[in-house]
């Protein structure tokens, strides 16, 4: 009842006034679960571990992937002496934070982060109650929002930072990322232009501007940024491979992909992309290396080898990103014998995918190249 009342009050007030700097806004796990989390952590600090655990379990029931709530329950159990149960919960929280594909390694560090960041948003909101004039809590909370796919809230925090520290290029670069995530690519380019003018060697800003340019259809400008970024990466294989793939420069990507396949066995996408490069360069594919049976990447690998039909792979693509990945690979597979069909697949990628996806940029470059 109290929860509902506080929630409805908050919502009612929220609709009438602007969010204040030290106000918490629920995020990716939904309002009810996150309110429960917030109340539980407050109760836990005030010594009522039992009620805290109860509320946290309710929150987890609503949002089973809510790793921060699971970790908070682990802490409460641990302090209560149930070490074994606590240990299992801690492990569960860690596992959940690893679920999903991490962000592309050539992107801004915030966009490479995995898992949700509710606890961080709550913690930095608490910091902002007493330290309003400093950059870090604003930026850190903004980053947490951005990583949790709430760019409008992130943008608000970045703008507050810029109001306090107008010369902060770090905040400006993040503002560019948030604008880009909101689809405001022109404004993103404008912000990133200023950052790059002051810091021409800012590799992450170059990457972000490249993505914004590409989203605006400015292929040459995008490629110019990425080529510059490639030169700044000093041969770091993961990031270099991704940038080269955005450029659809398979010759450059190949050695970096080979390195990553050899050194990072946890990410099956390296194998997918290595075979992409080999196919596009007309070189023989290495023997099939199995990855986890059910993983999406194994379907992409099977598609590349001609062992999985298009219909089945497309049926298993359960998100827009995966559909784009599959379409891109279909183009790669078919290109050698039917360029027109390949162009058609890649055009679908460009029409439907997010510009941040490596396949989006690669498809655009493939199309631009095959048209010329």
């Amino acid at each position, binding site marked *: 009842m109290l929860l509902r009342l506080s929630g409805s009050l908050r919502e009612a007030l929220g609709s009438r006034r602007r969010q204040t700097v030290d106000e918490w806004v629920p995020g990716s796990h939904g309002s009810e679960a996150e309110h429960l989390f917030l109340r539980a952590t407050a109760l836990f600090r005030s010594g009522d571990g039992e009620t805290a655990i109860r509320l946290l379990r309710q929150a987890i029931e609503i949002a089973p992937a809510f790793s921060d709530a699971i970790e908070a329950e682990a802490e409460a159990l641990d302090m209560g002496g149930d070490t074994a149960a606590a240990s299992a919960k801690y492990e569960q929280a860690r596992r959940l934070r690893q679920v999903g594909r991490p962000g592309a390694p050539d992107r801004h560090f915030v966009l490479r982060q995995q898992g949700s960041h509710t606890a961080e948003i709550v913690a930095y909101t*608490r910091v902002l109650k007493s330290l309003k004039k400093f950059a870090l809590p604003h930026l850190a909370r903004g980053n947490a929002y951005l990583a949790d796919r709430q760019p409008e809230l992130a943008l608000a925090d970045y703008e507050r930072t810029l109001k306090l520290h107008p010369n902060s290029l770090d905040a400006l670069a993040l503002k560019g990322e948030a604008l880009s995530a909101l689809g405001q690519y022109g404004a993103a380019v404008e912000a990133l232009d200023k950052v790059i003018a002051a810091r021409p060697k800012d590799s992450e800003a170059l990457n972000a501007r490249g993505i914004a340019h590409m989203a605006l259809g400015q292929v040459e400008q995008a490629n110019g940024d990425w080529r510059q970024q490639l030169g700044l990466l000093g041969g770091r294989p993961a990031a270099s491979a991704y940038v080269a793939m955005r450029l659809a420069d398979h010759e450059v990507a190949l050695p970096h992909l080979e390195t990553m396949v050899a050194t990072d066995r946890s990410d099956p996408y390296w194998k997918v992309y290595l075979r992409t490069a080999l196919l596009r360069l007309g070189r023989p594919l290495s023997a099939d290396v199995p990855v986890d049976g059910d993983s999406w990447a194994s379907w992409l690998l099977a598609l590349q080898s001609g062992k999985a039909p298009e219909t089945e792979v497309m049926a298993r693509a359960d998100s827009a990103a995966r559909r784009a990945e599959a379409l891109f690979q279909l183009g790669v597979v078919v290109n050698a014998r039917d360029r027109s069909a390949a162009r058609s697949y890649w055009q679908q990628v460009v029409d439907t995918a997010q510009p941040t996806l490596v396949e989006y940029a690669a498809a655009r470059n493939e199309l631009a190249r095959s048209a010329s």
Partner: protein
Amino acid sequence: MFSVIIYGRNDSHGYNLHKRAAISFNALAEVMSDPDDEILFVDYNTPDDHPTFPEAIHDTLTEKAKKVLRILRIRPEQHAHLKSKTHLVALEAQSRNVALRRSNPRNRWVLYTNTDMLLVSRTEGESLSDILGAIPDGFYQIPRFELPEMLWEAAFDRRDPAGNLAKLRDWSVRYHLNQVVHNFMPMKYDALGDFQAALREDMFAIHGFDESMLLGWHCDSNLAARLALYRGRVDTLIDKVFGYHCDHTRVAAANNKGRQTRMNDQDQYIWNVSTPYVPEQAETWGWPDVEIEEVRLDRETSYQRFTAGLDAALKPATVPYTSTSLEWFLYDDLTYDIDHTLPFVADQMLTYPRSTSVMLVGTRGEFVERFLTAWRAMGFTGPVLVPNECEGLPSGLEGQERGAFEDLLPRAEMFVFEFGLATQHADEPVRIGRQAGPLDLKRLRVVTKLFRQATSTESETRPPGRRTPRRFVGVNVIYNKFWPLFTDYVGANINPFCSQVLAGLPRNDPSLRGKVLRFRGRRAI
């Protein structure tokens, strides 16, 4: 799996440093189980004539600790360019970065802690290597629990880490030691610098610790802020490991002056941090181009080098003892026993870099030969520079270079001045009232003149780029007429006569007498 990075120097930082450091080194080694694990101790700015801190306490370390310990020695000369910018004698960011740069690249993790921490895994028998091997990428911290000074000082056995960790398990319950002190984000916990586990790869990506933090304190919070930005979260390992800190506030450490403590600006280095990176030091952090000496306690130890040098240069004594006397009539007798003196000379050398070039100015050919033998056998690779002005000394020996004093002066990194009698034979009895002959006096005049000149012009004749003064070792300068000469120009301690050797840095005596002495030295008057 992981590299532990700690730092310090051979001094007395805080209370009973030797005991708590030994406890900590041994306990850290005890929780390692991967062959790649290592403890990197950066010995920062210990005076050149001292051994590194772990060498000084090596006998209290376990064999395992000695095996995993790599000591990286940063010399005072390497710190000299920062000396005017800080009141501290050991710099945390520089130390930790030098270690990070040189850490084992096969290790996934870097653990930043300090030399007074003990880590207890919550599952008995589980090593920290196992724990770190099983957790996902991230930035991990744990809370620090305090250990009253009485407990670690009175009850811990330095060489029994397993027993100490068992005691901690018991005490933590009996004495309610485990209190988590939470802190604002991004710090997460109080005293966070005693356990910060980061991916080695992440530390390279963010350019290590911020080396502009020269005033002490908050390096850990700055790192937490930057890694919290980079990783998006600060994770905990409280479910896996507890960390205990040997409390040491009975005596304030050098960096703790109560409310007068100078420290790095919190606003700048914590609350206004806006990026994980430190682009200003992207190419220079951890001093990648500086040659840092590495010392091991499990091989080529100083003791092994010392005995190798002396065994090569000396034959064992054939009598139970020899004797000499302090009686007045022997004051002018400059004979001395090389066999007895050489160990004390070698003792002055051993803590210096192996590449040191030493200038040897003396009178006795036998001393030069024996010194050179010991020098090479101790593993020194730098040349022994002997001025042409010293007549009657052997030439063409391996490792020896001869040249004009003026030319050799800017190449020397250390000096040995030997004041003996050129005519003394190897089998001659020592200190029986022998007077110096004309040839002896002639040679001694040369040594005296060069000594005065070298000490008086030391600061102007240093090797290019060198900022710190060079050390002077005087052989046969106790209780004879060269004692006043040597101590007029060199700030040496009072040593027992039996050692025959004094050493120190050139004196900068501001009195009129000091000025006159330096003037005479410069002009070779």
